[in-house]
């Protein structure tokens, strides 16, 4: 589309430009148009940031009025009054993050390794494999767009109902399995990018020394791509902490502390939802939401730090 379609607007601009010469008022109009348009863009950007500041600021300010040691160290009392604190929800969130990442990380990174290191060769070797790899890539793309409530429905049907004997029905295990499906495409994509950024000369150097492909991957490519992979993992942790819809239908919502992987629980985000919809304890919901936002902000800081460190490393490498 580049050449043919673009020539028209440029030509129009040229024509317009020619008319400018004849009519000097036109230039002023053009300048005015630019000022107005740019003003609109600035307004849009500032509105977006203002919305962010308003939401984050309000929740933090309101939230920190109820947050104290008592709130953080008491468990929710249940019932419609919404009394109590949030201690067990913090621990449950932690459990969820650990188990989900434990399930998703090996598969995600493994898939990324295959897609970056092996796929091109394999596709060249056989038509069937090329087809299969194409399908695998489409799968990742589809999975990345699936809304979380669908993961919830799927997790409910498969892990909570069909695999009840193995997962214990509504449980941390069911929720982690469903959550792992959600973060899998994120881990695959970010790891793939990180692996692709490792210069080919690293691989060639290692292979030239007589290392096998697998040795090259584990001892040269993966360590070099590690910061990028870690960035993706932190991103996934953020998604799990923020996720509500999946866990609403898979984890059971019990405010008690889970006693094992097969027992129900309630993570922080779900606690916010349940407080806001089932009780009138908005101030407690605000408190929990403030802790939630704080967690996300800290995770984002980590992402920024690690990606900055990583890009510096990559830049240094290619120069």
């Amino acid at each position, binding site marked *: 589309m580049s050449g043919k379609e673009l020539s028209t607007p440029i030509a129009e601009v040229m024509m317009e430009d020619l008319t400018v010469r004849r009519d000097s008022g036109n230039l002023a109009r053009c300048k005015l148009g630019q000022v107005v348009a740019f003003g609109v863009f600035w307004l849009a950007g500032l509105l977006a940031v203002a919305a962010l500041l308003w939401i984050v600021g309000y929740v933090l300010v309101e939230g920190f009025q109820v947050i104290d040691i008592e709130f953080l160290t008491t468990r929710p009392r249940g019932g419609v009054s919404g009394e109590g604190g949030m201690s067990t929800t913090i621990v449950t969130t932690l459990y969820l993050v650990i188990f989900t990442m434990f399930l998703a990380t090996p598969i995600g990174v493994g898939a990324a390794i295959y897609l970056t290191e092996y796929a091109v060769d394999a596709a060249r070797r056989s038509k069937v494999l090329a087809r*299969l790899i194409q399908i695998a890539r489409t799968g990742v793309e589809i999975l990345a767009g699936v809304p979380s409530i669908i993961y919830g429905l799927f997790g409910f049907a498969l892990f909570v109902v069909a695999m009840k004997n193995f997962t214990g029905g509504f449980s941390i295990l069911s929720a982690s399995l469903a959550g792992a499906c959600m973060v899998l495409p994120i881990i695959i994509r970010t790891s793939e990018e990180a692996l692709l950024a490792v210069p080919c000369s690293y691989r060639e150097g290692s292979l030239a020394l007589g290392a096998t492909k697998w040795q090259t991957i584990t001892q040269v490519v993966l360590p070099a791509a590690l910061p990028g992979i870690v960035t993706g993992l932190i991103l996934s942790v953020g998604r799990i902490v923020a996720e509500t819809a999946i866990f609403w239908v898979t984890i059971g919502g019990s405010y008690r502390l889970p006693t094992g992987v097969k027992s129900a629980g309630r993570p922080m985000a779900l606690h916010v939802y349940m407080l806001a*919809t089932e009780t009138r304890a908005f101030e407690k919901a605000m408190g929990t939401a403030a802790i939630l936002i704080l967690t*996300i902000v800290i995770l984002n800081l980590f992402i920024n730090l690690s990606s900055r460190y990583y890009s510096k490393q990559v830049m240094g490498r290619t120069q």
Partner: protein
Amino acid sequence: MTEQQPSSAPEVMTGDVRRPLIVTAIALIWTLGAVAAAGLLLFRRPEEADAVTTLPATTVAAAVVVVGLGLLVGWGLWTLKNWTRTAMIGILGLVGLYYGTLVVFDTFAQIFGGEHIVPLLEILKNSGLALLRVLATGAVPLALIYGLTRTESHFRETTRERDVTNRSVWYVLIAAALSAIIIVLLIILFTSKEAWQAITGVGILEMIFGTIWRPGSIIGVEGAQYGMLPMIVGALLSTFGAMVLGLPLSLGAAILLTEVAPAWVRELFQPAIELLAGIPSVVYGLFGMVILAPLIRKIPVQANSGFGLLNASIILAIMILPTVTNIARDAIRTVPKAYKEGSLALGTTHWQTIRQVILPAARSGIVAAVILGIGRALGETMALIMVIGNSIAMPRSLNDNPLTLFLGTARTLTGNIAVEINYATGAHRSALFFSGVLLFFMILAVNSLARYLTRERLAS
């Protein structure tokens, strides 16, 4: 230099292998342990006296397997095979992980299990005890792992072993690569299977075009009706509202970040937009409930509750902003610099260049961003439940003014699933799964379109 001579040819298995003492010890302990375990299996005195004479075949088989594995691993260690070392570390690590999980659950239950957290002294005591417990029971495995990792250089890996690893890992990795498509197929399979009862019992067209949602779980199976049109309309209207409010905002921000703003503003805005993407949807929902609802309630219209499509649209508009802005920004950024320079060199103003050269060149990418935003808005769930009012009736305007439609309450497909799935049974549950299937394919279509557009752009 001469000392390094032997290690340069690791494939040559010489007779005089220097086996470290610790490996000898581990091999012996392991083999004896396996034999002891097998003996325990075979000669353990059962509760019933008559069972002594006839050993069950499974026990014998298990004993044989245990002895076999024990001898195999023992032999592997004795001859310094590298695969044995890797396998042992892996197995011990997994066992340790399982055990560690149990200890963590126990310890946390002691600390957080009650109404309040136990005092600090108790926490220290409990964690100390847990550590002691791990050390006491894990001493032998930990020592084994430590011994094996320290003696790595003594183990030999033959070329054949290395090749086998290299080749077998290929199968593991392609399995991982196919996991995503397998999950997609499982999602389609399981949601469709659950939806089958509703598809055959109620009918697809009845569900999509029916206007009354009266599920059997509430009013009995007799008069149950499963029309989803109100929810479909609710989803489309809230998405439309979000687009009207959100697109100018997000596209404007994208142009600002790529073309207009100086670098330092970009540096400030970028983390803000990333944070916007990371904020949990329940926080947006809470904000809509506590702040926006009272504000909207001030609009003087009869039966205006503050909860409804307008509230939902505003929340959605903010939620789709990061998605649309990021993708549109990337699209604008990939327009070749030469286009811009060529246009500016012709004497156009910056705005004319943006409007007539850059935006047309980035058009398909921007359209893809908008479409992905639509997909995101259609799939959003929890925030919408909190602000949209959740009435199951068809959305309608509150008075003669058609715009008050947006002040009315509604329910989306996603919200319908989340609100009712936990107590739905029978045909009701099945119908909810059908709405999941519907949603899945709607979003699949939307995302495929966006993907097609971006691919076309990259190709050109």
